């Protein structure tokens, strides 16, 4: 897509968010849309790493969890204002990513998958077992609502606008990175590390940077999550959550910022829609995901575009 198409897409997107936020009063739907927003952030952060730079991470929920727990501990146990906890939450996740990334990113392919998987499990276990600090398996209670200046983001509507404004900003930021010189280098790593090195891309450094960036963004989602639900528990940040983020990226379409939005929406909404199937819910859920992968192997975004292009070609004739 060119620059103009993206600007139009942002405008349509912003308009849709405003309209939805304005028209929808039902708390359940607002909450659902907020979750779509948070999941979009997570999918977007992983897409930068996986879709563009081609580095798989099966432990991304760990950074989500670190973001949520750092703000929870700071704002509740130490009474720090949430605004001040935000840089700490994002910073901690980035620092952890940097330390973990140095040895881990030497791996590639399946091995990197295993490495990040192990990391995700370690974080999950720490959150569950270090009960004096994290509240252990029963979770962390009493996180205060988010206050910025005089505004308290407590009602569904306020929070809806906050989350989606953050999503829009992140979408624009990621797009700009992808189109820049650094973004080109990222994509070159995906296609061949040796070739990237041959043109002078410092692949090690760049992979570490995108990993750290991606972790920071996931932690931002974790921060927003903690102040949305006031109660967090380790289960939310387990291995299954990591896999769900990967699925969002793959289903939505790798290497596409809008793919993150689509994948996150589908995977958040599907379980809600499928309640009608009661005990067969998970079966149908699995079947739909399999169907998408069989018929649109490059994800929804690319798949929809392909169908559209084929349609246009047939009509041009």
């Amino acid at each position, binding site marked *: 897509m060119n620059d103009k198409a993206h600007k139009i897409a942002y405008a349509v997107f912003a308009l849709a968010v405003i309209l939805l936020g304005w028209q929808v009063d039902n708390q359940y739907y607002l909450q659902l849309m907020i979750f779509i927003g948070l999941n979009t952030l997570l999918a977007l952060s992983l897409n930068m790493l996986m879709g563009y730079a081609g580095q798989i991470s099966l432990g991304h929920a760990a950074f989500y969890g670190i973001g949520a727990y750092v703000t929870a501990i700071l704002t509740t146990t130490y009474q720090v204002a949430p605004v001040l906890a935000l840089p700490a939450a994002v910073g901690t996740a980035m620092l952890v990513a940097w330390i973990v990334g140095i040895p881990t990113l030497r791996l590639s392919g399946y091995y990197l998958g295993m490495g990040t998987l192990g990391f995700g499990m370690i974080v999950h276990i720490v959150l569950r077992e270090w009960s004096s600090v994290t509240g252990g398996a029963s979770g962390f209670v009493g996180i205060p609502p988010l206050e910025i200046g005089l505004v308290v983001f407590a009602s569904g509507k306020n929070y809806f606008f906050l989350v989606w404004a953050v999503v829009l900003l992140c979408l624009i930021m990621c797009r700009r990175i992808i189109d820049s010189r650094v973004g080109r280098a990222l994509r*070159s790593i995906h296609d061949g590390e040796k070739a990237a090195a041959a*043109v*002078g891309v*410092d692949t090690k450094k760049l992979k570490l940077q995108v990993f750290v960036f991606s972790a920071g963004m996931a932690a931002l989602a974790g921060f927003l999550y903690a102040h949305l639900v006031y109660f967090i528990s380790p289960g939310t940040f387990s291995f299954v959550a990591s896999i769900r983020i990967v699925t969002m990226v793959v289903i939505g379409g790798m290497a596409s910022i809008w793919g993150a939005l689509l994948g996150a929406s589908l995977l958040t909404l599907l379980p809600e829609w499928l309640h009608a199937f009661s005990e067969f819910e998970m079966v149908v859920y699995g079947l739909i995901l399999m169907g998408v992968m069989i018929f649109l192997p490059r994800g929804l975004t690319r798949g929809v575009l392909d169908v559209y292009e084929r349609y246009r070609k047939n009509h041009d004739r």
Partner: protein
Amino acid sequence: MLRIRNLKCFYGRIMAIKGISLSVAAGEITCLIGANGSGKSTLLSAVCGLLPDWTGEIELEGQSIKGLEPPAVVRRGISLVPEGRLIFPPLSVMDNLKLGAYTRYKKRAANAVEADLESMMSLFPILRERFRQPAGTLSGGEQQMLAIARALMARPRLLLLDEPSMGLAPMIVEKIMEVLEVLRSGGLTIVLVEQNALAALEAADRGYVLETGAVVLQGAADELLADKDVKRAYLGKDYGDFYDAG
């Protein structure tokens, strides 16, 4: 310009290059020929910093490049056109070219890079036609041209090419050799690694013949072209021909 002294390269415990010394004069095309496994590509990898495990000395204009990472080597003015081209297939031709200039953006070289893009497209007009197309849709010869153009975008003083003729029709090989000669007359120093010895020696000024990790013959390219051993082993002249001529 480039001087290599007693270079030994290792893959684990295997020694792939067993003490090669050679020198490349500025403004010349130097070719390295030899069969599979003779160590040609390994030598280029060592020069580019892609192969960390070597001993001996490699000097560019009198300065050692030992221990430099690939990006630093590119910044010193050495560009590699890798074996098998290794372009970035999903990226557009434009993005591939701009990636070649990756190390230059920091110096606020945006205008110079644009100008270089333009000159690459006059050197290889086909790239202008394919400018926005994904590089993977290009034909083999076009991809090779793109790979060369990409390497040139870094404004190298020394260009290394690893088997640019691989898998290409003779006509296109000729075209690529012509481009190399144009570049040489523009002052670029070129090291050409080839299995296609005939094409390489015809374009080159000097040649080295490698065999199992050592230099077995060296000299001016036209002398090598006339050399009996080279003829027999690398130029595909058959034995009858060889004995008749001898």
